[in-house]
């Protein structure tokens, strides 16, 4: 076959307590577009960080061979000097600097006396912009550009560094269809010019359209590398590779007996707060008493955005749609109104959005329902402690005292504090966003048990999760979300990881 530009051999990378990558190997041929696929958390980004030197030599085991020579990178600068440029999902442009300044940031065009030669800078920038097909004045500030054009500026910046290997992490995740098509077109042209490209993507239709080979990663291991010119390299084939995990009997049993509908949203739409695109697009779903409903979606599908925009419009703008509780439409335009209507939302990022880490367990548990503990604005501190103690026992929160600072607890116990806090608001529907992220297996089991107990009491629960086995193990029904749209609703007895993943990667039907 054609010669190999990059080979990563047996890469193993360990974080405290977690093996993020285990003997991952990947070979990228010169001048190809090589896609990397995998579920959230499969290890794709970690692999790219190893490659670009974010994780320096020595922090992992294995070998990186570039152009037949082993290389050792100790930082981004090292890898860039070898022609490897990575473009992250979150663009790294300085908003108030001009396009040209951004392109040459850290790599300035110097003239006499070490001063920046602006004429040459702007002339070079114009040339690079033409290459990526962006008709903009190089002196206009980046902030004036849409996200799609900013992406092109990033690529122009990469080209200015004489890139050999361009790595794109979810390049089209934030783009609309037109911009996506334009970007893919550009990647094809760059390939024809001999630039090799690694692309991480969740969008399987894009991968099948553009990639020459695809490597599938699962749970930190390479599953397989597919030659995309082969006839059987279909989306279904990739999906099988991505999800081929076993579900063990890890989930506590539960009698499923759903009752009346508790919560329903209709035609829910929300726009990104700053960008011109919908993050949730006409979503409708419902959940009944005593039922666990899952929401499955890949990174950027709009799961958290959906939940947060429903929960008192905590995210997004120009939100439209209707919320029904027990069949009656309710107003939940603020978090307080949402809570009063019996909606609770436990965030996926408990440290940033869920807990006051410098306050004690007791105050965190009471914080969303202080009204229940107070009369005329005065908090009954003893009652508060009693409630906290009750939660500590019910939830089995491991702490010597409820006066302990929450920041000192383990992740699993912090999550139990979050759950306690929301249960104390006495909600009818609980939206749990990644309830088991970053906590150990024992604590996970406990969280599942708690969820089952709640459902048995007749609460309605919505679980958002990146782990399909978790959804299959916990839920009665699963909705799939892709690009802000509900693409499917599957009863759990009919759901498999494969059919869910197919729905999760289903794009809007495009012309072309």
């Amino acid at each position: 076959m054609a010669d190999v530009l990059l080979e990563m051999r047996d890469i193993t990378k360990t974080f405290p307590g977690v093996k993020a990558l285990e003997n991952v190997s990947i070979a990228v041929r010169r001048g190809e577009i090589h896609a990397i696929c995998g579920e959230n958390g499969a290890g794709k980004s970690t692999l790219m960080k190893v490659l670009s030197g974010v994780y320096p030599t020595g922090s992992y085991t294995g070998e990186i061979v570039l152009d037949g020579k082993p290389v050792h990178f100790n930082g981004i600068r090292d890898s860039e000097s070898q022609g490897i440029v990575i473009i992250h999902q979150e663009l790294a442009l300085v908003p108030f600097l001009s396009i040209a300044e951004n392109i040459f940031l850290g790599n300035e065009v110097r003239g006499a006396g070490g001063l920046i030669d602006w004429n040459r800078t702007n002339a070079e920038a114009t040339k690079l912009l033409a290459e990526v097909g962006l008709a903009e004045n190089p002196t206009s500030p980046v902030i004036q550009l849409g996200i799609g054009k900013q992406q092109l500026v990033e690529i122009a910046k990469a080209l200015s560094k004489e890139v050999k290997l361009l790595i794109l992490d979810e390049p089209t995740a934030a783009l609309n269809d037109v911009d996506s098509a334009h970007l893919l077109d550009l990647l094809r042209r760059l390939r024809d010019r001999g630039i090799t490209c690694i692309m991480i993507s969740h969008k399987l239709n894009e991968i099948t359209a553009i990639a020459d080979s695809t490597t599938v990663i699962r749970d930190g291991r390479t599953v397989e590398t597919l030659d995309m010119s082969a006839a059987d390299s279909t989306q279904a084939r990739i999906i099988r590779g991505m999800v081929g995990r076993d579900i063990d009997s890890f989930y506590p049993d539960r009698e499923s007996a759903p009752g009346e509908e508790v919560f329903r949203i209709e035609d829910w739409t929300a726009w990104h707060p700053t960008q011109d695109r919908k993050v949730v697009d006409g979503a409708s779903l419902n959940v009944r008493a005593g039922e666990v409903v899952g929401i499955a979606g890949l990174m950027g599908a709009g799961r958290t955005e959906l939940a947060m925009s429903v929960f008192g419009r905590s995210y997004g703008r120009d939100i439209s749609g209707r919320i029904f509780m027990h069949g009656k439409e309710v107003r939940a335009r603020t978090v307080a109104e949402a809570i009063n209507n019996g909606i609770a939302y436990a965030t996926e990022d408990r440290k940033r959005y869920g807990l006051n880490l410098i306050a004690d367990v007791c105050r965190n548990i009471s914080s969303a329902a202080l009204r229940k503990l107070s009369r005329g604005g005065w908090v009954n501190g003893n009652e508060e402690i009693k409630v906290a103690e009750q939660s500590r026992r019910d939830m089995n929160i491991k702490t010597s005292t409820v006066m302990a600072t929450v920041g000192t607890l383990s992740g699993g116990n912090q999550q139990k504090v979050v759950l306690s806090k929301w249960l104390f608001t006495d909600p009818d529907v609980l939206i749990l966003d990644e309830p088991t992220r970053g906590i150990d297996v024992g604590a996970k089991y406990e969280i599942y048990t708690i969820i089952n107990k709640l459902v048995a009491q007749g609460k309605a629960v919505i679980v958002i999760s990146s782990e399909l086995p978790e959804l299959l193990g916990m839920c009665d029904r699963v909705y799939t979300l892709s690009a802000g749209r509900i693409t499917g609703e599957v009863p759990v007895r009919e759901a498999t990881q494969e059919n869910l993943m197919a729905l999760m990667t289903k794009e809007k039907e495009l012309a072309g």
Partner: protein
Amino acid sequence: MTSTKPPQTRESGGSPAAALTTGTSDPRTLIMRNLRQSGIYVAFVVIVALFAILTDGVSLSPGNITNIVLQYSYILVLAIGMVILIIGGHIDLSVGSVVALTGAVSAVLVIQQGLPWWVGVVAAIAVGLAVGAWHGFWVAYIGMPAFIVTLAGMLLFRGLTLQVLDNISLSPFPAEYQKVANGFLNGLLGGQGYDAFTLIIGAVAVAGIAVSGYRTRAARIGYQQSVESFPLFVLRILLIGAVIMYFAWQLAHARGLPIVLIILAILVIVYGLVTRRTVFGRQVYAIGGNLSAAQLSGVKVKSVNFWMFVNMGFLAGVAGVIYSSRSNGAQPAAGNMFELDAIAAAFIGGAAVAGGVGTVVGAMVGGLIMAVMSNGMQLMGIDQSVQSVIKGLVLLFAVAFDIYNKRRVGANR
């Protein structure tokens, strides 16, 4: 890094028993936390003792203790509002100007227009509230940083003060008005060379502290919370009682119980309760501790921020009355740099720069540390320049200590 573990069970790491050891906050962090909370009191005692020795006891003489109270009362009043703002993650740089403006308005009404003294008091507080609402509007509803809003306010209200006073000082206030800051409750029960009333008030305060302390302790036992051992509790009450009675004794041998001390005591008690026991107080801590989490818990952040500033305005109005009463008039330059003393008091008293941490009592002790130091150094005849250097260093080290401590706690996690 977004690595999720596969659900297969790992060896033994996931068992509940293993989680127990990591979940429990070890005794060392508890000690560290208590040390940090009591460190400020220890520092206060050391500083008081130090200056008592350096000034041959003059700093603890009846006349001087009265003086400290009178001289720094308005800073302490400001520090109450300031620490609440700092806990909420804000700051107010304008309070010095607001003290000047409120005093000026009061002086114009009472001295120039000849209205009764209480009209001046009410007007000053009303102006303070209006200024607070002004700041609150820009910070809470427009979303500007408090630093900028109150920096603008500092200039704005200083300018208005000059306008109101027409660039001249006004003086003197009627006797009733002067009493606010310079008056004493004295001889109400007679006495032989000392004021019995002051001692009785002191005794009542000690009894109140003992009873409420005992009830709190009993309630906590009822709720099966850990409490200090009974002898330790008695010792603590005895110590506090001794300090208060000594303080009362000294006051009783000077001019009696200052009216401003009563005002201050009421404010400290009320705001101590507001911060610890009310929904509003809890929400202030929640906002300062984690704004996003507070928002997602249904806290009406805008409204709480707004009322924090209105409250600061109210206290600045009170301080304006006290200051104008004490200086017996209004001057264009009144209140200069008061904001810095109030901010320093809050930080020395253990408030965290990032918000979410701090207490009213801590700020009071912080303010008293500054007061005792300034007063002691004045008594010793130390040069102004040196005083300033020392105060600056104390502030610096107090906050450095706070940051150092936080890192320790973080490392223990």
